[in-house]
């Protein structure tokens, strides 16, 4: 009879048993357990067996490996996620985690590379993989049109990426802004006109020619020319462009909290104004607008005597 060596294994030293115990522990501490905790639970298991069990669980995707300031933490991975990542390997999981952390704003491929320390080719392959699995999506950033940021598939891109109300599909809507610009200006102009007509006491006249940003906002909303919902800040940016056009001036007055349209205790008032000087003398002469002014001198190719702009202007 052959001598069969039977290794006496201590009770519950079975690898599967170890794994199950670890999983149970993880369930007990959903925030994660350290190696120390496992050791305390199962003091009779050697470090090597423990390591093997943990590695198996990690590769099966049932445990998450996290680093904390005290050391390594093992956390149970929820089953749904575990199912999703079944076919992926560690690197993909890593990349997926990084993208998940980026949240709403998404993350650029170069940043993923920095965080994961993986080579570029690997990253690209993984990203393609994840995209085909419909786990992540690429959103074109409005700031730099060549840049693509990646975020989780079901997340809504943040406003800073898509540009907000003024952008539709990454395109800046110039005509929309122009139309709004003109409409606001016309509104303020008519308000100033009516105030002028009323011919009252000058203080009242001036005050009634002002319109608060809230009034303008209401007017624009009622006009209904915008398909997108516009907030008061949006209207204020449009009114600011009118200020930079020199057509409108703004004052801020203190308003009680609670009055319509007041923000933080003050209100912005806008008024249509005229420019303070008419177009200046220099621009009435052709030299003021001449594109080749610096090349012009007597006796040269371009000179006052043979200036074609002057000839045209004189014939006017």
């Amino acid at each position: 009879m052959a001598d069969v060596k039977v290794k006496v294994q201590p009770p519950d030293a079975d690898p599967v048993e170890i794994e199950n115990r670890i999983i149970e522990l993880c369930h007990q501490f959903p925030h994660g357990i350290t190696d120390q905790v496992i050791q305390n639970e199962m003091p009779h298991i050697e470090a090597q067996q423990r390591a093997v069990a943990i590695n198996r669980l990690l590769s099966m995707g049932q445990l998450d490996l996290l680093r904390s300031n005290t050391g390594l933490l093992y956390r149970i991975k929820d089953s749904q996620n575990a199912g999703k990542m079944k076919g992926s390997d560690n690197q993909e999981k890593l990349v997926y985690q990084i993208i998940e952390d980026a949240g709403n704003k998404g993350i650029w491929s170069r940043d993923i590379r920095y965080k994961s320390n993986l080579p570029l080719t690997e990253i690209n392959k993984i990203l393609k993989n994840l995209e085909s699995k419909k786990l992540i999506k690429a959103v074109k950033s409005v700031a730099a049109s060549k840049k693509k940021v990646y975020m989780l598939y079901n997340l809504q891109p943040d406003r800073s990426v898509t540009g907000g109300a003024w952008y539709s599909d990454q395109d800046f809507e110039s005509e929309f802004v122009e139309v709004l610009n003109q409409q606001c200006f016309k509104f303020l102009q008519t308000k100033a006109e009516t105030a002028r007509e009323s011919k009252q006491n000058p203080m009242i006249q001036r005050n009634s020619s002002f319109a608060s940003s809230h009034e303008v906002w209401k007017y624009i909303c009622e006009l209904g020319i915008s398909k997108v919902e516009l907030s008061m800040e949006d209207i204020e940016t449009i009114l600011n462009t009118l200020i930079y056009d020199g057509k409108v001036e703004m004052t801020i007055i203190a308003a009680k909290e609670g009055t319509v349209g007041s923000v933080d205790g003050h209100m912005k008032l806008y008024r249509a104004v005229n420019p303070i000087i008419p177009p200046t003398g220099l621009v009435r002469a052709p030299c003021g607008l001449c594109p080749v002014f610096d090349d012009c001198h007597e006796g040269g190719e371009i000179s006052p005597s043979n200036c074609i702009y002057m000839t045209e202007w004189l014939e006017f």
Partner: protein
Amino acid sequence: MTQAEIKLCSLLLQEHFGEIVEKIGVHLIRTGSQPLRVIAHDTGTSLDQVKKALCVLIQHNLVIYQVHKRGVVEYEAQCSRVLRMLRYPRYIYTAKTLYSDTGELIVEELLLNGKMTMSAVVKKVADRLTETMEDGKTMDYAEVSNTFMRLADTHFVQRCPWVPATENSDPGPLPPAPILVISEKDMYLVPKLSLIGKGKRRRSSDEDATGEPKAKRSKHSTDNKEPIPDDGIYWQANLDRFHQHFRDQAIVSAVANRMDQIFRSLPVGYNISKQVLDQYLTLLADDPLEFVGKSGDSGGGMYVINLHKALGSLATATLESVVQERFGSRCARIFRLVLQKKHLEQKQVEDFAMIPAKEAKDMLYKMLSGNFISLQEIPKTPDHAPSRTFYLYTVNILSAARMLLHRCYKSIANLIERRQFETKENKRLLEKSQRVEAIIASMQATGAEEAQLQEIEEMITAPERQQLETLKRNVNKLDASEIQVDETIFLLESYIESTMKRQ
């Protein structure tokens, strides 16, 4: 002095005074202060001619002289004063609006002659006014002197400095150049003159035909046997006072433009009730333009006009206007934006101005190459690497104003050159028309018939007449344009001067 300024001075001097004066004047402007012999030597003109040219220039206040050590007298040209000659029409027009035709003619005479005695001015102006009046009426000297006195009272004309009368008969050697002094209080003192007389009408044209040269005749008509009572007291136009007036006008019209709706309801005349006045003053003080400020409550409210701020706003408005006309209103929007926010990054410019990125970039670069906007670099790392540096766009109003001023000078020089060119082109035609006019005038004097006159007039064909008309129109247009550009120059110069004074 920049090249553009020197060119402009040279054109002005040539047009008003001729070749020789121009040569001397430009030489002095270029080289600064120089004594007589050096001028003669460097320009290669005879001493006599140099002396005459300098006389003319000094008479018109364009050159001043100074005695240096060792008794050398040096002459210095004042470029800025030469450039004022562009503004003569504006001065004359202002005098006309304020003091009607009499004032206009007085200022015109003073500007054309540099310095004159009061009696000479009065006489000349009376003569000129009499000519334009109807037959039989003449201009009284008293009226003209009245206007002259009013001009002196409001400081539009002032006395020239004179040699102080020495108390004792000093037998010492005469100084190489007279030292002229004037005290503040004497500057506007009108001497007590009893100018009695009436303006004389120039002899009618039938006496012209007697062939007497005009110069001889005028000697007969003026009674210069009487000693001139105010000999030695010369008057000149006070340009600074005119400038003050222009500046005030500019500020008033700027405020009127901004608040016109409110001014319309202002009652005419000065009898405004106190409350209404209070309201208007508060309105002015509260206006974002900040021209008027309230500096205390003494006497019911102390209001002050902030001149530097006003000039700054006017200069800024000029810059904005140029940007708008040259580059378009979107560029003007960006320009005003950078002006208000002082320093902005590329991205911020796009966001605030609501202009697509590509266009905004293009416009910023255009303005940058036109020197309206400049870049401020703020490095993040000591090695100024471009990728790690902030680039901020900013507007430096003073330097932009200077750049624009230089452009104005060159533009006016161009306009003058074009005007001279146009006149030269049609010289032949102009001479012909002048000859024809002279012939017609002489024939009318000798009582020729209508038919003969018609014949002479037809010497100028219709297309030629057309050409003459066009020429006249063009020359007028160019002239008017020079005056308009000069308005811009005035605003910019006032702003630069005010800023430099504060520093």
